[in-house]
């Protein structure tokens, strides 16, 4: 049952990708898309789709939208802070690799968390191992695990926790 669900999710993702690539909904495009998406989904049964593990509740959907906005805000903020660092003549950096904790379990959620952390102010995920994330921080504000977790991870985790369980 779970396998079938995964297959269907993958198939739907691939079909969406196909229609998006072609930019049309004509009958011939759809027929070829269904065939090729089916074959590829069959070959990659144990693969992941964006939606696999996503909770099918309205609350999760709402949080996904909020997550996107939060992410865009953080991305722009991060670039402005980076610009401030790069453009200042003294290069005020204070780098280090800190260790933080995450509660997420679903692979897709963890990957999205790591990617989001990399694109947000001054942080870069170096290693993800079990519940520990090792993060390179341009301006280290705290080397304590809990303080750093609250500073770096918590913002995204509150959304991702609802989206992926």
């Amino acid at each position: 049952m779970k396998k079938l669900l995964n297959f269907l999710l993958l198939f739907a993702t691939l079909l969406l990708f196909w229609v998006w690539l072609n930019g049309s909904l004509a009958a011939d495009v759809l027929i070829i898309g269904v065939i090729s998406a089916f074959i590829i989904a069959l070959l990659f049964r144990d693969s992941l789709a964006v939606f696999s593990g996503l909770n099918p509740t309205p609350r999760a959907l709402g949080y996904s939208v909020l997550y996107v906005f939060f992410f865009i805000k953080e991305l722009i903020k991060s670039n402005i802070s980076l610009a401030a660092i790069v453009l200042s003549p003294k290069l005020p950096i204070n780098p280090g690799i800190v260790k933080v904790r995450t509660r997420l379990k679903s692979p897709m959620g963890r990957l999205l968390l790591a990617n989001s952390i990399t694109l947000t102010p001054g942080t870069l995920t170096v290693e993800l191992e079990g519940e520990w994330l090792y993060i390179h921080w341009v301006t280290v504000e705290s080397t304590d695990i809990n303080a750093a977790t609250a500073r770096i991870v918590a913002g995204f985790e509150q959304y991702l926790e609802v989206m992926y369980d």
Partner: protein
Amino acid sequence: MIKRFITLLLLAGIGAIFASLLFTYVPDSELNRTADYYAGHTASDIGAANIVTAIIVTYRGLDTLGEVTVLFLASSIVGLVLSLGQKQHKTQRNRVAVGELLTTGSRFLAPLIMLLGVYVFVNGHLTPGGGFQGGAIIASGMLLLLLADPLRHFSHTLIATLESFSGLSYVALGVLGLFMAGGFLDNRILPTGTLGELISAGAIPLIYSLIGLKVGAEFSSMLASLSETEDLK
């Protein structure tokens, strides 16, 4: 010392030839006769929007058959040469483990890359790209799988079957063109349809898809045989 001198002399000679070519070159302002024919007749005769594809698959189809054969030979020779004298027993290969990020990322991305490859070769007659590019993209997807799991063994039988099946169908379609249309590899065994639609241009999408599968299988087998070769100390 004398060797370096001869090298420089040789390069100076070639450079002089190149310079004279460059300075006497006058760009054309009109298409030459061949190109003019292709430009004027492709849309009405072949029905393909991408003229380069029309040339590769139909006008110069035989050359492409030869090219695919050369590639096939190259990939089988690479496999043969690398497997010569290899010890059959599997030594344990202590490669550094893959991080979780790459595993998850590749599990997500590999199907999408495959589908991108399919898109590139199915749309060969409409957009840039075609069988060779699509095949290379499919092989890149295989490479991603190999990177995420270095000890994975691809089924060589599957790759070889796919390769020979598409090669045979390609030649069969060519022969079909001999009977049902103007000549070997003629694409008009199917109706040419309207210019710019996905199913149009006769057999070109079909032929290019077969070429794409074949080329993808060949490149994948090259990568797989290089990856499965034992390390030298």
